[in-house]
């Protein structure tokens, strides 16, 4: 944080163009971490927590590209954060409904690992499906 403040002040002092790293102090992996931490909001408001987590999850790539900090490691952190986030959300709903729901993030983790082995599989966006289900049941079905 101090390094960021110093960089921002130097940019102002040197009268050079302010770029994204000068304005946004966090790294893409820290944004991914925030996405996982936001998942804990499921215990308070599942819909807001899901929206926050998904927005932060999509934001980490933007941050990485704007800071010219894209890397394979960053992509792996994004994947890992997604898997842990799914376990948090589906763990909560497994408690509310049936423990079998926890098999969905397990399946997604296995699909992710298969992807790393080079298998042509697709990771299922189970958080999006969960958000759609919650929105439909909360707002559209009386």
């Amino acid at each position, binding site marked *: 944080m101090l390094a960021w403040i110093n960089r921002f002040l130097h940019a102002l002092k040197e009268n050079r163009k302010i770029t994204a790293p000068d304005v946004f102090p966090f*790294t893409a*992996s*820290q944004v*991914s*971490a925030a996405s*996982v*931490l936001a998942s804990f909001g499921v215990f308070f408001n599942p819909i807001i927590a899901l929206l926050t987590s998904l927005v932060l999850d999509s934001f980490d790539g933007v941050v990485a590209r704007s800071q010219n900090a894209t890397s*394979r*490691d960053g992509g*792996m*952190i994004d*994947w*890992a954060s997604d*898997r*842990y986030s799914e*376990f*948090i959300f589906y*763990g909560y709903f*497994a*408690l509310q409904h049936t*423990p*079998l729901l*926890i*098999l969905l*993030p*397990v399946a997604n*983790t*296995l699909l*992710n*690992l298969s992807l*790393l*082995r080079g298998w042509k599989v697709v990771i299922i966006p189970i958080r999006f499906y969960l958000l759609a289900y919650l929105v439909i049941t909360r707002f559209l079905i009386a």
Partner: protein
Amino acid sequence: MNTPSHIFVSLLIGLQFTQDPLMLFIAVLAGILPDLDHLPHITKALKTGRFGSSSRSFFHELIGLSIFTTLSLFTGDLFPLVFFPLLSHYLLDYMTRPTRPFYPFDKRELHLGIYPKSLKWMTIIEVPLTCLLGLIVFYML
């Protein structure tokens, strides 16, 4: 995260579901289960002051979480007392330590950058944090 922290967090989670000492013991066991793979590396850890990501077997990563989660489905009513402390262990480690989440399929070591890496700062933060967790557990008990 260090083992006492895992124990305290597991107790905190267990206390949300039960006050029964045996059930709380089960929650603690589930919470520290992944750390059993550190036992062969204790000598090295005592010399260097830390275990390191190489002391983590695949049971300590996402595939281990998947295996233990699936097994926790067979615990019946104990599912919340087993799954949530277990999940807390993986999350705490992911947030605070260099991990290899996709090991053994990918051996890349990843660190989120929200927790200090140096042993000095880790100790400065973890000792009071662990004591605080212990106090909270003691108060709730």
